[in-house]
């Protein structure tokens, strides 16, 4: 049975009538045309579909949309402040941490979630926090550098 589900996506209130079992990822991509979150595996093993749900890092491919009702979703499209990139996006740009870029949206959102929880992560904590995200271009080295740089920049901004 279809259900009426309300989501706030990147600040916009959106209502869909759909099967509540449908993955959140499908609804975002196919119904709301928010295509930043990507499909990579559909089994919670690659992180390409990472979004923030009520601020928490969430794999949209394994979350039935029914359980996202009344939740707030942030995707890569909602990170920048107008023309100003989010510090994590900016760090990826500065480090050149994209190859094909297909994993990038998930990488950035995982990094944002990580840095929200722990603004000064050690390398071990970055690895632990990012380990669910796969990059098959294998650009891990530069992505690590980007996360380190973002952490440093955020720390810099937050200094009194």
């Amino acid at each position, binding site marked *: 049975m279809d259900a009426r589900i309300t989501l706030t996506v990147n600040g916009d209130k959106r209502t869909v009538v759909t099967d509540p079992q449908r993955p959140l990822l499908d609804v975002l991509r196919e119904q709301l045309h928010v*295509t930043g979150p990507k499909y990579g595996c559909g089994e919670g093993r690659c992180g390409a579909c990472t979004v923030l749900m009520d601020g928490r890092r969430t794999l949209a491919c394994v979350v039935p949309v029914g359980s996202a009702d009344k939740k707030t979703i942030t995707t890569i*499209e909602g990170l920048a402040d107008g023309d100003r990139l989010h510090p994590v996006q900016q760090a990826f740009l500065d480090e050149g941490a994209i*190859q094909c870029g297909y994993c990038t949206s998930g990488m950035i959102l995982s990094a944002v979630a990580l840095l929200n929880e722990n603004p000064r992560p050690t390398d071990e904590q970055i690895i632990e926090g990012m380990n669910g995200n796969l990059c098959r271009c294998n650009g*891990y080295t530069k992505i690590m550098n980007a996360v380190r740089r973002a952490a440093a920049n955020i720390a810099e901004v937050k200094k009194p």
Partner: protein
Amino acid sequence: MIEKTATEEKVNSKCFEFVQEAGLSRRAFVQLLGTGLLITVTEGISIGQRSRGGGRSIAVAARVHLNRDGTINVMTGKVEEGQGPRAQLSQAAAEELRVPVDRIHLIMSDTGLVPDDGITAGSRTTPSTVPAVRQGAATARELLVRLAADRWKVDAANLNVQDGVITNKKTRQTISYADLAGSSDVAEAFKQSVSSDVALKPVSEWKVLGESVARPNSRDILTGAHHYPSDVVRPNMLYGKILRPPSYGATLQSIDLSKARAMKDVFVFRDDQFVGCAAPSSFLASQALEAVAQTASWRITPQPSGKELFSHLKEHARTGGRSSPRTRGSIDSALASASKVLSETYTLAYVQHTPMEPRAAIAEWNDGKLTVWSGVDGPQRVQGDLARAFDVPSDRVRVIVPDMGGGFGGKHTGEAAEDAARLARAAGRPVAVHWTRAEEFTWAYFRPAAVIECKGGLEANGSLIAWDFTNINAGGSAIDTPYNIANTRILSAGSDSPLRQGSYRCLAATGNNFARESFMDELAAAAGADPLAFRLAHLENSRIRTVLETVAKHFNWAARKKKVTAEIGVGLACGTEKNSVVAACVEVHVDRKRGQIKVNEVCEAFECGPVQNPANLTSQVQGCIMMGLGPALREEMQFEDGKILNASFARYLVPRFEDVPKIDVHLVKKTDIPSAGGGETPIIAIAPAIGNAVFAATGIRLRAMPMQNALRRQLA
């Protein structure tokens, strides 16, 4: 049924639309990039003509188009899938047109708009397409200078071009490319062919090439604004799912489509073995497909399984005929006279590219014309394949490849495009087919498995005098030994591959180099020599010597070799392929109890001639090292009775952040040869260097990739 949304309009405005009323013979199109630019390409300029990345000549207009705002459209058939051609080819054009790189707008991989530069593969962009684009741009610049000279009635030698402005050095009179854009004499001049002997800027004068230019559309990728092939939406589009056999070789005997047909909004189609369902959501299409799949009956044919893979390959090895060995000297007598002979067999498992973006395509038919958006390496090749599959002339098929998710050699074919086109034609609506991860794992192709047989003969003084090397099934790339050995016999023998196999980053070179460089290490040990000294003693190729010596110096080979323990080992390897050279030193930690190999550090030196984009090349080398770690240690397709047993990221373990070693990359400078591509060869040194390091620590020689599995078997 599907509402038109803001996003969808954005997608469409980013595409290039054929002018609908234009006849087929008059190729004309409007480019809508927010600036409302109009390009018309008239009859007589064959833009689809095959340039082979530099071979046959094309019209300048097919390569270069001036816009009134001072930007320049440059057209290429190459595909951007993360390896950097968008930046690199923009640099190439900017260099020869004498404009800043951001003035170049590169139009890529759309068979309706661009020349055929050949498939994006084999590291050919740098040695073939960069020169082709440079020649196109340089010819355009010369034509424009000549036009200005004619207008001013002066000698072209008096004119100078900088920043897209042509200046008369004497009178200081100027005219810009923007001023010339759209004029009829430019249109006339650009009908001329690209000159293959136009002078190109020498490396010493490069201003734009050689710089670390970022990917031009980086920002769109970082903000999610870029639409990958799997993101493209067309009005009224459905999502399609295709019925797959339960095992390789199975054929459909009967199926009942009625249950799915009864589902609201679902379209079901069967044409012999092809069964597909399409619906307004992929969720619904999957439900419909499940409903029909349950009613299908199949005829199963027996298939070889993984446990008999290597015996199967050996049994079916095709020696003789076309696969006759290349020989030098007399291998048999050299082996007979050698004081020591080693003979070993190496094996290589099938592996998969597992690109993050699985195959995806959107197909749309209009008046018998097919347009496909898909993530494929060869748009023109797939255009031809689709034309044949649907029996339409190829000028009625247009293939567009938006910058796509990485392929690594795995996206040469257009399966999803064909699936989508078949369903779209039957449904009478655009259909998108996005392969699932399991489909990608099962129905794409694999890097070939191999059995590699090596024999080597040493003289009493430790010099290598005999080399016998046979690769069964994986192919002949980098099969020749770069070492100086008087008697050799080298053979690449085909076989019967149980799984569908195809290209992969550096393809057979990885396996050949793994076996060769591991076996060289075995021979060095047998000769009682240091692995580095043993290689250098047999190596004349100065480029390989340089990278080997560079990496040994940076890694501090001699000192670190002395510090090897039963747990910490160091190893090295080198090689050459596609006109570039590589050497690597690694340090590994071997945990015998858990049968685990952890790579702590990789130091790699790479040289591919003049570097055109250092930051991008560094990414490629780092990416190759990490990608190479997977098949070296863990990746292996498991299959039984025609079924893949590990078709998921949960059971097929690709490298993750936790696997990243300390990586130290050295790009060796060399400017007196043409540039070669760098996106593949850096992968070939990593596996043998790891194996050699494991041997140094444990004395255990691992002769199978993946090596972690091999280590566990040996320790068991």
